[in-house]
């Protein structure tokens, strides 16, 4: 009994110390952008504070980081060019912890503490649905840069504006390409079982039917699974001409390596971007990555002005190789700038109307939102050739020719 007391005291002190340390750290938080509570008046003074929701922590933090890099580069450029409406721009990043519940709370926080009239983000489709719903109740426009699930623009909200192409567009682009090739009849869909994969699957089921491809197999998996060989064996038995994957990074690598391992041949290995179009995919999957086709949103070789410069800037500033996630965030801030300037004031309703009628060119291509708030962004299809992404579709954007996929047994 006697020696219990000191331990208890020690434990209490430890905890108190940890909280105190946490408190000390608060002083530094200003470095990140507008700090906690002082950023109240967004429109006041000579700075304009804009709210960004993204996934700084949690399962999607890899992509949240990419988005943040895009925003930061755009922020530097805009401020160097005189800001927005003559005011210096500040960004405040709220973390949605990769959860829809937190993303919705972030909207409340942006509105309450920062008097936000416009919201940028979030990253994922799951969070985006919640943010769109919430922003609609406040009647505040939300610019969605990256979330691809079709239903994000189908809530009936008049306040959602999406830059990126959707999972429907991915499926359609792949089907267009296959139709042009003309030698594919049967298809298997293999998708991860969370929001992204399930949306991609739904879209492909719809378009495959429309284009007359027979879906002979539809498999879902979890990225937590240890092994995909049994599932790929199921696919192999159906002998599909085309396999359409919807995968994140590590599972995309594992799927292709295991496909090679079990000799799962197909005329076309296609994918809904993401894991199959991240910069590290060709290196990580090595030879197994060759010939895979991925629908994507952007490639540094795109003809739009500023594309290549953006790629170099991100690489210079952060040392990373930017993907379309970076680019979409970058373009989103420019869209916000154009809308606020067109509205002439930092006012939600005016910004919404400006967005609805906006027409502009960005490094991510021309931007114009339709009545549901969707921008008609063209999808490109890239193929991995000798460890590099080559754009092969559509013809007017192509930088190389599509190569036929040889069976595994004939590859060196």
């Amino acid at each position, binding site marked *: 009994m006697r020696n219990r007391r000191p331990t208890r005291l020690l434990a209490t002190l430890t905890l108190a110390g940890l909280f105190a340390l946490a408190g000390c750290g608060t002083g530094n938080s200003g470095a990140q952008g507008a700090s906690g509570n002082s950023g109240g008046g967004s429109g006041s003074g000579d700075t304009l504070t804009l709210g960004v929701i993204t996934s700084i922590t949690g399962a999607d933090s890899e992509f949240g980081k990419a988005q943040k890099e895009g925003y930061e580069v755009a922020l530097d450029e805009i401020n160097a060019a005189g800001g927005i409406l003559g005011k210096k721009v500040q960004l405040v990043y709220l973390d949605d912890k990769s959860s829809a519940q937190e993303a919705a709370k972030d909207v409340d926080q942006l509105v309450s503490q920062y008097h936000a009239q416009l919201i940028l983000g979030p990253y994922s489709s799951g969070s985006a649905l*919640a943010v769109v719903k919430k922003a609609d109740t406040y009647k505040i426009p939300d610019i969605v840069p990256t979330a691809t*699930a079709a*239903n994000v623009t189908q809530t009936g909200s008049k306040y959602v504006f999406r830059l990126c192409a959707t999972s429907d567009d991915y499926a359609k682009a792949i089907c267009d390409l296959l139709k042009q090739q003309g030698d594919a009849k049967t298809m298997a869909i293999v998708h991860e079982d969370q929001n992204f994969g399930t949306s991609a699957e739904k879209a492909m089921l719809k378009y495959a039917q429309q284009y007359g491809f027979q879906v002979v197999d539809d498999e879902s998996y979890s990225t937590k699974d240890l092994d995909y060989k049994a599932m790929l064996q199921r696919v192999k038995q159906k002998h599909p001409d085309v396999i359409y994957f919807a995968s994140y990074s590590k599972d995309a690598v594992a799927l292709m390596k295991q496909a090679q391992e079990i000799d799962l041949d197909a005329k076309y290995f296609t994918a809904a971007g993401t894991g199959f179009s991240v910069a590290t995919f060709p290196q990580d999957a090595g030879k197994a990555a060759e010939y895979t086709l991925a629908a994507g949103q952007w490639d540094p070789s795109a003809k739009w002005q500023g594309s290549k410069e953006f790629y170099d800037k991100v690489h210079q500033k952060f040392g990373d190789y930017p993907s379309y996630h970076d680019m979409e965030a970058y373009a989103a801030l420019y869209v916000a700038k154009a809308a606020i300037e067109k509205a002439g004031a930092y006012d939600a309703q005016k910004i919404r109307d400006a967005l609805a009628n906006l027409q502009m060119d960005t490094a991510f291509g021309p931007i114009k939102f339709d009545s549901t708030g969707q921008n008609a962004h063209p999808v490109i299809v890239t193929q991995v050739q000798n460890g590099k992404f080559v754009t092969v579709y559509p013809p007017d954007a192509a930088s190389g020719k599509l190569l036929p996929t040889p069976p595994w047994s004939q590859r060196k």
Partner: protein
Amino acid sequence: MNRIRSWILPVLALIVFAVIPFTASFYYQQIFFYIFLFAGVGFAWNLVGGYAGQLSLGHAAFFGIGAYTYALLAQHIGVWPALLAAAVLSTVSAAPIGLICFRLRGPYFALATIAVAQLLLVLATNQFKDLTQGAAGLLVQGMVSDPSLYYWVALGFMILAFAITALLATSKTGYYLMAIREDEDTAQTVTINTPLYKLYALLVSALLTGVGGAIFAANLGTIQPNDVFSGAISNQVVFLSILGGTGTLFGPLVGAVILEFASDWLKNALTGVAWLGDPNAFAFFLYGLLIVLVVMFMPAGIVGTLTKWWKGRVARVQSQRTTAAGV
């Protein structure tokens, strides 16, 4: 006298809660929404986990069933009938789950409840995709026209959950449940029908948890299986009850207030603290540490410990008075 005094705290709390929406921002109203919601579900969990001493780690099962029932039906049969359906269906689902899991004791019961919740998560994600849309998510009809009204919905839910659990806990049923917690075999030998009372507690608990899930879904406006069926939901409910004090009337509310505010404060205070790496992870690290410390040094939780301390003080004061009077 004593009766009146025991009402002071709840009435004071209610007055504070009634004033909040007129002073606090929307953001803090939402924070209170989640405090009330999870406190309410915590009260419900407390019946099974606290009073009856059956450690359920799978309450997300009922939360998810309630949420999905509401989400799927609200557009077709209306908002309030859908809420009723959520209550009914989560209660009905608790019967087979209880019959299976209550055949087991101790850690085996806890494991079985996790397995059931995980099973439902996988099924909702994959096998029942036609119904739930899987992880693509469902849009959910709102319950009330103005988002600020959810504050009152959650407050009402919490008061209801508190009233029901308080009534049960202080009745004969409550004493039977505590007898089961202390020693199930002895309870059985003194002719308490232990399986019946455990199931009774679970049914009531599931009903309230299901209603909580429906309110959660309506406020969020969209759900996918991971939002409502996940272990994170189950654990949150358990941890806040432990922190506040299991088997105490107010424990879950105290736990919910502390955890929600701590999580909100840490999120904003720690953003940008570079050496932490990931501030959210640090917050959850502290959360884990807190649970460890509470289990080690304060197993009765905050409310339990304070009550004990208060009773001890009162007893001391009284004994001092009597000795003083004696002298």
